[in-house]
């Protein structure tokens, strides 16, 4: 036994009650009583008829119980390791205290400074060395081509 619902008002239709109407475009409409079917055939809009379910849902009548359930959803964020920095490495980095970090910063700065100095001295010396490289020889002579015809 299947309890249908009325196509106009949303009421429940028990077996042996009501009418079934099949329209020309093969759409099926079920009516629980002659009141519903008459209003449907007069082409009344159920959204404007105050006692229908469609109207009540639209104007939110009597639905306070349904609204209270909707708050219990929150997404939980999970920390995930990436390729190159697994979960332990991320946690270690995050848990460093400020003191350690500033120390690391100073160490990095001083290292950079020394490296820079070394670079400068290196640049000064080899800049002169490759200038004196033998007498000037033209490219053609070096290549030893056809003998200059």
């Amino acid at each position, binding site marked *: 036994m299947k309890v249908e619902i009325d196509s106009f008002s949303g009421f429940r239709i028990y*077996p*042996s009650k009501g009418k079934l109407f*099949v329209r020309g475009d093969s759409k099926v409409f079920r009516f629980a009583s002659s009141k519903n079917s008459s209003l449907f055939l007069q082409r009344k809009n159920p959204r404007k008829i105050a006692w229908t379910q469609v109207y009540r849902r639209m104007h939110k009548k009597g639905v306070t119980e349904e609204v209270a359930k909707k708050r219990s959803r929150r997404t939980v964020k999970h920390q995930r390791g990436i390729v190159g920095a697994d979960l332990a490495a991320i946690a270690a980095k995050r848990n460093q205290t400020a003191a350690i970090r500033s120390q690391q910063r100073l160490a990095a700065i001083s290292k950079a400074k020394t490296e820079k100095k070394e670079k400068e001295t290196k640049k000064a010396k080899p800049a002169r060395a490759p200038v004196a490289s033998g007498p000037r020889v033209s490219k053609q002579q070096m290549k030893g081509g056809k003998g200059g015809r």
Partner: protein
Amino acid sequence: MIGLKGTLNVIDNSGALLIECVNVLKQKVNNGWGSVGDEIVCVVKRARPVSAAAQASTTAVKVRRGDVRRAVIVRTKKAVRRPDGRFVRFDDNAAVLLNNKREMLGTRIGGVVSADLRMKGWGKIVSLAPKVV
């Protein structure tokens, strides 16, 4: 409730469009009413134009205006009671053409038919229909 002079739409591809009832075959009275699943004798009032080339070649029978044929009613505007107590009503009256041996003339049915046909023994029509209510 189809009786004398009642018009029905034809929903198969036999070529007829509109038929008019002349006699309802179930009862031995002249003023009987036909309902879903009843056989009637009818006159074709309007038919699709049959081209001369198609006349001789096609195997499907094409009916013409003025033909007297038989038909079975598949949809009625008058509500029909189902065994579970429901009433089913369609928006128009419709029929499917038959020959004298209760076989269909067309090969396809377009539209919804009533499920009461099955109870009256027209299972072939029900199986061909695209939708049964």
